[in-house]
């Protein structure tokens, strides 16, 4: 069990998502940055489907009631374990009864805390991901609260001991049992404005010429009223040539739609499955996890790309993920 002393700003259980049910209006949901989720899980010897904690900007204070092997990946955070600095992108042991305090993010916005054996909340519709808008999945369909108890795998302590022994270059650092190596972060935002690749959307031509140009020329800021459903982008107001109504149609992760007020919204993990707003752009799948790491106030520019370029970006990212996970899988013999 993990006992929650303080929940942090928005901490939810997330896994790789709930796929195959969009025809019933059920969105995949899952980690906003699935690349970091996979790496965090890989670092403790879990498969990609294990439940993790997605920590947003301000982290939780947790007490581990059993020894556990854990890892943080994604946003860089200041983390203390038993009062000592805990490493990033490396597996480490949390002693029984120790307090893990994730303070605030230093870079990026979403960190993933994986525990060997996974956060063992029951699956709902095939996934442990929390879907906040309809209140299901994860821990009772909501974000963590003070006093919550999070179930771990029954053999979490035994798994921790067994898996830790398999790791190469084990060492103690500031009194924390960890390793002398780390894996790279693949999705952390570089210097802002970050550059995100996007293709013209289905309704791009419905916008006036100035708006078509502005979308790819402007520097956009992620506005404070952004959430897991979508990032509102503040910048120039985008206008259509004529305000014809569009029949509601399917939307995707990374669709950039523009409601009547002219402020574009980039659809993120908890987006609605269909919508009737015109789509000015579609973000390249490889770049969505990097966008997810921007904090409110963070800035972004969109670089026009083709379907072929988007495919190449995916191939490069997939190769880097594979290289990272392959090394970890080899370590754990999985």
């Amino acid at each position, binding site marked *: 069990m993990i006992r929650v002393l303080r929940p942090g700003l928005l901490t939810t259980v997330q896994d790789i998502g709930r*796929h*195959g*049910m*969009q*025809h*019933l*209006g*059920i*969105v*995949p949901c899952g980690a906003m940055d699935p690349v970091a989720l996979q790496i965090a899980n890989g670092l403790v010897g879990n498969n990609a489907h294990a439940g993790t904690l997605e920590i947003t900007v301000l982290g939780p204070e947790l007490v581990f009631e059993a020894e556990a092997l854990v890892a943080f990946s994604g946003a860089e955070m200041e983390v203390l374990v038993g009062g000592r600095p805990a490493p990033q992108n490396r597996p480490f042991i949390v002693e029984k009864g120790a307090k893990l305090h994730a303070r605030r993010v230093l870079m990026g916005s979403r960190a993933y805390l994986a525990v060997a054996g996974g956060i063992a909340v029951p699956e*709902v*519709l095939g996934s442990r991901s929390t*879907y906040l*808008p*309809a209140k*299901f*999945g994860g821990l009772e*369909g909501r974000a963590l609260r003070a006093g919550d108890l999070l179930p771990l795998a029954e053999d979490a302590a035994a798994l921790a001991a067994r898996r830790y022994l398999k790791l190469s270059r084990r060492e103690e650092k500031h009194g924390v049992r960890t390793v002398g190596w780390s894996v790279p972060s693949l999705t952390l935002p570089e210097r802002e404005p970050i550059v995100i690749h996007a*293709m013209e959307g*289905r309704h791009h031509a419905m916008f006036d010429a100035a708006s078509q140009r502005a979308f790819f020329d402007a520097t956009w800021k992620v506005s404070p009223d952004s959430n897991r459903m979508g990032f509102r982008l503040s910048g120039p107001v985008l206008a259509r040539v004529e305000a014809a109504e569009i*029949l*509601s*149609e*399917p*939307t*995707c*992760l*990374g*669709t950039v739609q523009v409601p009547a007020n002219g402020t574009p919204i980039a659809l993120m993990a908890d987006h*609605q*499955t*269909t*919508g009737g707003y015109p*789509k000015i752009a*579609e*973000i*390249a*799948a*490889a770049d969505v996890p990097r966008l997810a790491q921007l904090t409110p106030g963070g800035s972004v520019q969109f670089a026009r790309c083709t*379907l072929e370029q*988007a*495919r190449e970006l*995916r191939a490069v*990212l*997939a190769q880097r*993920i594979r290289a990272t996970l392959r090394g970890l899988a080899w370590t754990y013999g999985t």
Partner: protein
Amino acid sequence: MRNVVDDQASRRRKLLRCDGHVANISPAAAAETTLKKLLKTLQLAPLGDAAVYAEFGTTLDLELNRSLQALATAVRARELPWMRDVVPALCGIALHIDPFHPELPDPVLDACRTLLEEGFQAAGKYEDSGRMVEVPVCYEPAFALDLDEVVAATKLSPQNIAKLHAGSKHSVLMVGFSPGQPYIGGSDPKLFLPRRATPRTRMPAGAVAIAVGQTCVYPFETPGGWSVIGRTPLTVFDAKRDPASLFAPGDRVRFEPISLDDYERMKPA
């Protein structure tokens, strides 16, 4: 009707058991013609690099929608490992792929075209999936929150609004927006209304509302811009129920008028 209602749970289980399975195979000749017509008008457009949208038109056509439901079911039944979601919509089908799947074909747009063309061959047997969802609706003014506006706009009496709505042959054109939220077509044209100028900030769960020739049954308390003409005591979506969603795309729907007493008796505890 009382008996029908009493036996609701077991009947609902029976009715909703299958999703994408065929109960009655009746490939009407007319339906095949529509499918052939669809194939000719097939337009594929990428929705970014993780989805493809096959559009068959830009205006709502119930017959066309019926056929594309069959096509979507046929494509979903292939269970391809790189295909995550097959989502039928009002006038088209979105195919959501796993962009990082090792078996993803290249170029994926061509593979989707082939998949849809092959889907047409198999779609005939998925016409008329045989599912019928019966939805009890209390049309009493207590629940018909926008009755005055609907009466004014349609020049129909409250009784006739309920009668026309319940008497129409409805089917689910698309499920989307929220989990389990159906867009149901087939209402009598006399009930055609535009969306409300000012959306309601709170649409109660179970609200039955009409706009643009369609009916929506709201699964959750959300904002909504349609005119409410009644309420169902059924739970439209429950993630822990099997099946979670009362409605699936392609279902036929029959709205059955019930009294306030029926409603009170049937509503979840």
